[in-house]
């Protein structure tokens, strides 16, 4: 079982990102479970979601204590001590940040976990669609984790936003593709 935790701030689409990954993982062939953990809706408050990819039905509903992957929709989430709970050298991090991974690694050096960064905000801004940053980040995660392919992610985006305009789906798919492209190049 692969356990993933996504952290960010209220309003950034952390829960939606987890739901998209659950759809993508399912399409790719995993049993998936996405479990948000949030409180009364407050923009800017810490939000996280637990996500499981497994080869058999997942029964547990316990929050993820020791994630294999940590995805941060903003590097600001690092200032919340809960974000890094249960992270050790076996965990891998993907952070939406304009800083490079070396700068961030120095900041959280004691973790000894592998850190990837992607400037997902820039990808989304370049597409004139700031809300597509998470799609870029998930594209990047597909590339660095190798656990799902870009096609599954893009069809998950289409399914999740099926009641939205076609244009919005396409922009998010484009963002995912660009995030995938940037990190694929970096890790292969």
């Amino acid at each position, binding site marked *: 079982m692969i356990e993933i935790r996504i952290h960010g701030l209220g309003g950034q689409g952390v*829960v939606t990102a*987890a*739901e998209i990954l*659950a*759809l993508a993982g*399912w399409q790719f*062939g995993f*049993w*998936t*479970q*996405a*479990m*948000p*953990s949030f*409180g*009364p809706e407050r923009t800017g408050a810490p939000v996280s979601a637990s996500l499981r990819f497994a*080869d*058999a*039905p*997942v*029964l*547990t*509903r*316990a*929050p993820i*204590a020791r994630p294999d992957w940590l995805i941060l929709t903003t590097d600001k989430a690092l200032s919340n001590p809960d974000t890094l709970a249960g992270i050790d050298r076996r965990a891998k991090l993907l952070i939406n940040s304009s800083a490079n991974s070396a700068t961030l690694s120095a900041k959280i050096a004691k973790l000894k976990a592998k850190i990837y960064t992607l400037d997902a905000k820039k990808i989304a801004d370049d597409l004139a669609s700031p809300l597509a940053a998470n799609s870029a980040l998930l594209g990047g995660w597909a590339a660095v984790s190798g656990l799902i392919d870009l096609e599954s992610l893009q069809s998950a985006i289409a399914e999740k936003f099926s009641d939205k305009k076609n244009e919005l789906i396409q922009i998010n798919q484009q963002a995912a593709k660009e995030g995938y492209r940037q990190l694929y190049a970096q890790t292969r």
Partner: protein
Amino acid sequence: MPKHDKLKILEGSRAIAMAVAACRPGVVAAFPITPQTHIVEDLARFKAQGTLDCQFLRAESETAAASMVLGAAAAGERAYTATSSQGLLHMLEVVYNIAGLELPVVMTLANRSLSAPINIWNDLSDAMAMRDAGWLMLFAESAQEAIDMHIIAFRLAAELQLPVAVNVDGFLLTHTSEPACPPDSDAVQKFLGPKLPPALQTSHPRSLGTLADTEQFQGLKLATAAKLTGADKLINKVFAEYYKTMDTGSLTNYSSTNNGLLEWYGPKKAQTAILVTGSVAGTFKTSLQENHPDIALIRLKTFRPFPEGDLKKLCSGLKNLAVLDRAISNGAEAPLTAEVKAALYGSNLNINSMVCGLGGKTISQATIAQIIKMAAKKISKPIIIDL
């Protein structure tokens, strides 16, 4: 792994809304409250999209919502509402009336703690606040079982002419996305059968909800209670028929160890078992599978009527039983433990009361390890698991 074509990743609330829509209720009335809100939002969406043809009543309060479904059920409509926590407390007067009038309302209770202090997270305090009202009370473990139980609830409500509350853990189930099999509305209609004649109809005028004087009251109250107590056979029959005829993507089933009332999970000859209800059962199953293969799990699926006889039989080979209570009764023993003890009165079973998970407190593998460590000890007081 069940990789059924029909399975889809659904948020628990969406799965429930799809099940309710497949039952084609005539009236849906609700007032929003976390963590129930997504369910009625989805039903409103289905109505707006034209896939659900019903009267969707946006009530000004929970009391109003409950009153609306009371009236609708009396007039012969399939009537549905959903609530949580303080919302249920607000409806409680009408909740008792619905049961006393023997009206077939179906309600989802997305379980949440009760104020004060205010807290929006999961426990079973709200369910315990309505346990004496006279409703059938079912508890679902997964999104799939929530679908199953809602469809079963409409059938049971109609056949028994009693209200049914389907309990689902707030957030843990309502907000979790996982594979489930969307119900086929035509198959559901076939399973539900034709609507029964309404309690109130102009062709046969009668009064509903009249005063019962001291000569009548006790008898009427006890007759309603007897109807609920005697429903266990019908519950099993309806669950069995449901799992025989409906496609659940092989995620849920009916068997000799998992009937409509209770599920036994784990080794047949276990000496120690833990009794739980709701979706935390999945967390326990995972933990037992991985770390405690000698311990069994008993999952209470039907809480009202309380399955006393079946529970006695299931516990007959046990030495220790730990009862998980996710609610308290201020000034007395935790409610589920008290009921289990009453049901098993006279047995030599060592029963321990474990209280945890209040207000959304995490039930982790460590919590379960602690419960198992204490389960075989003889402790007269409730054990509070606080990790």
